[in-house]
């Protein structure tokens, strides 16, 4: 009876019945509009920005995307589940500070320090997930508290001095190149993309995230542990934030409490530009990938053009809006 209804295939839903051509399906996909804008921006920058379109610069963009993109993937799951995490920047700063402190002042081996710092971050994230569920404290508030407190703790740990970490093999993990070509952070970036995309589409946990975000009561009645899902997604952003903190530490060869200011904004913006609904229940990892690349290309291109930094800010704001408008327009006509 309803077989003629043209409904956009969400890439997250198995669609054995739909008999659309691949092209039509691609066009119907919500992210198409954004992808078109991304390509347009890319072409324009290639034409007008000096040295934009070089292999080295492309790799450079990927490297820079990693520093907020890894968190953006995890953030997508958090937003899909109906939550938010504004603490990632402070988490990254704390990780960087704690790791350097443990290595330099306490003399722990790097791997152990990194492991401990990750454990701390994940425990904090899981804690926020737990009080969200057990005590009904919105994650916005829980992570806002962390946002304030952890930055303070990071400053206290380092005394706001950068703590130099002298380990050249560690530096490789932040600034090195695989085969002398591909920046190491870019590798993390794609690895994270693949892992999170697979989790989101092909695991029971990933699908539960969508169910919890779409209707927590229905999810609970279907036997999904809503609490477990919330704890896990919040641990996920904490984990990626810690990794980002480690990457910064490796890149700068020092532990810094001033890094990653505004990381939450970049990560959330990339996810939402990529089509993730703030209300929960909807979003794709591939959309976020496009959102991350969009932001990274834009930031790089504007420096390439030698734009005044304030004009850069204005353009950035305008394009966030524009990208979302395109996205929304596409969704509505689909």
């Amino acid at each position, binding site marked *: *009876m309803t077989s*003629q209804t043209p409904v956009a295939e969400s890439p997250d839903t*198995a669609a054995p*019945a739909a008999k659309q051509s691949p092209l039509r399906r691609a066009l119907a996909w919500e992210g198409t509009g954004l992808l078109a804008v991304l390509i347009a921006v890319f072409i324009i920058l290639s034409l007008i920005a000096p040295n934009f379109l070089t292999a080295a610069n492309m790799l450079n963009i990927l490297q820079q995307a990693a520093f907020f993109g890894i968190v953006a993937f995890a953030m997508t799951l958090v937003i899909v589940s109906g939550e938010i995490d504004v603490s990632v920047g402070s988490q990254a700063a704390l990780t960087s500070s704690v790791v350097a402190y443990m290595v330099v002042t306490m003399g722990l081996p790097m791997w152990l320090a990194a492991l401990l710092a990750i454990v701390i971050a994940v425990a904090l994230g899981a804690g926020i997930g737990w009080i969200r569920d057990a005590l009904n404290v919105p994650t916005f508030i829980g992570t806002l508290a962390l946002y304030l407190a952890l930055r303070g703790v990071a400053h206290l740990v380092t005394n706001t001095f950068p703590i130099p970490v002298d380990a050249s093999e560690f530096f490789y993990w932040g600034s090195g190149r695989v085969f002398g070509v591909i920046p190491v952070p870019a590798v993390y970036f794609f690895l994270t993309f693949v892992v999170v995309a697979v989790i989101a589409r092909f695991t*029971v946990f990933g699908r539960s995230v969508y169910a919890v975000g779409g209707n927590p009561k229905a999810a609970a*009645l*279907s*036997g999904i*542990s809503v609490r477990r899902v919330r704890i896990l997604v919040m641990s996920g952003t904490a984990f990626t934030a810690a990794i980002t903190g480690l990457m910064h530490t490796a890149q700068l060869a020092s532990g810094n409490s001033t890094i990653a200011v505004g990381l939450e904004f970049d990560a959330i913006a990339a996810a939402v530009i990529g089509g993730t609904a703030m209300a929960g229940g909807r979003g794709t990892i591939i959309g976020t990938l496009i959102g991350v690349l969009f932001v990274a290309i834009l930031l790089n291109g504007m420096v390439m053009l030698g734009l005044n930094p304030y004009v850069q800010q204005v353009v950035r704001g305008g394009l966030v809006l524009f990208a979302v408008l395109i996205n929304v327009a596409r969704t509505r006509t689909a």
Partner: protein
Amino acid sequence: MADDRPVVLECVELSKTYGNFRALDSVSLTLRAGEVRALLGKNGAGKSTLVKLISGTEHPDRGHDQIKLDGQPVHWANSGEARSGGIAVVHQEFSLIPELSVAENVMVGRWPRRRGLVDHKAILKSAARAIDVLGEPLPLTMPVGRLSTAHQQLVEIAKALLDEPKVLILDEPTSALNSREVDALLALVRRLAQRGVAVIYVSHRMREIPLVADSMTILRDGREVATVGVREVTTDEVASMIAGSSRAQAKVGEPQDLSGAEVALAVENLVIDGLLEGVSFEVRKGEVLGIAGLLGSGRTELLSSIYGSRHDCEGEVLVGGRPVKDRSPAKMLRLGVAMTPEDRKDAGIVPLLGVGENVMLMARSRGRSPWIRRNQERDTIAEVIDRLSIATAGAGQPIASLSGGNQQKGVIGRCLAAEMSVLLLDEPTRGIDVGAKAQLYRLIRELAQRGISSVFVSSELDELAQVCDRVLVLRDGRVRETVSGAEATGDRLLALAMKTDHEELV
């Protein structure tokens, strides 16, 4: 029919297309003052769509002078205009604002002002008047979100009655009411009709139609099948018009006496403070056990407590003879016990996910593997869609875009996909059409034959009598009577549910 009464509402060839799906196809309708018109049709027939067009919530495809009120062509920009123009609607889906008080909800959108400010006193007064008409007291200052479903429905009706509409449209107003309240409501509708209000009454409950309606319009696949007076046709004829060719069977299977069979699920002395005083019963393997009771008798609470989605209870639940401690939905599902909630929008569907995803929710959380097995799922989904005849463009279609009945089938399909051994069904037929109901009854019986037990809660006592092997009557917090399926009739169950002078609704 008293054809000398003036025509109030006239609709000419209304059509509505969603995308390229025609939900309504050239339907015309003429309504006279004081007439009660029943609007019938199975799920997805277009009833709600017609209601939305008349009430200005949606606009017809071609919007030229197609709707006339008192002879004047009208163009509502929105439902607010329609309402002030004299057309009031109680929609199938609730439209209440949980945090506002009952009184504010009744008056929402038309709050009276005094010196520029909202006049809360006047709101209370007018709301009280509107609620008085219902003959059921409601706490005026309580946030609506805290009322029971039935009371929320009453608030909806009070809202519609507020400014004495010329045309009142009720879209399945009784789906959340018990028989006594249904009778009160039907009487109320008659009273309003006597006063000259024209009423459009949408319902799946055939029993109500002759009691309330003068005439009926039957829709099928978006088209008008017939418009006839209630006394001109028999119930059977109506049913076949609704269903098309085939007609739903009235009797479903033979009630069995399974008292010798093994106990699948047992409840011992379940107590919820102030609601249940100690409920005990057993469900046998392959048995369909009905639970009858009035609204507010605590049937929903009983099922939720068994299922572990509610924890403020004492007493024991045994599955397969073993007591289950610290019950939770996940745990009960592992033991093969599933529940479908009574409010599908609030707790049933995950609206943005596809039908397939919705159907697989329980099966996945029950399975051990952390991975989704797409191929296996595809077959399961196809089977469930086929078995329940869910009308959908494909497994990927977001479930929220289906009609209410089909959404409900999706929710029930969840238990099928998860291969449960005991089903706790809370009002599974709420808002489902005759055909789909019959399908569901057959399904429940078929499952019973395969050894799957069901606990069937319904406010439509007729269907309990039709389907169940045994029916418990819940009254004053206890199981007061047990009626065997053979002896059960709707009237008998109703009598038992209402028996004795227990504490009445305040």
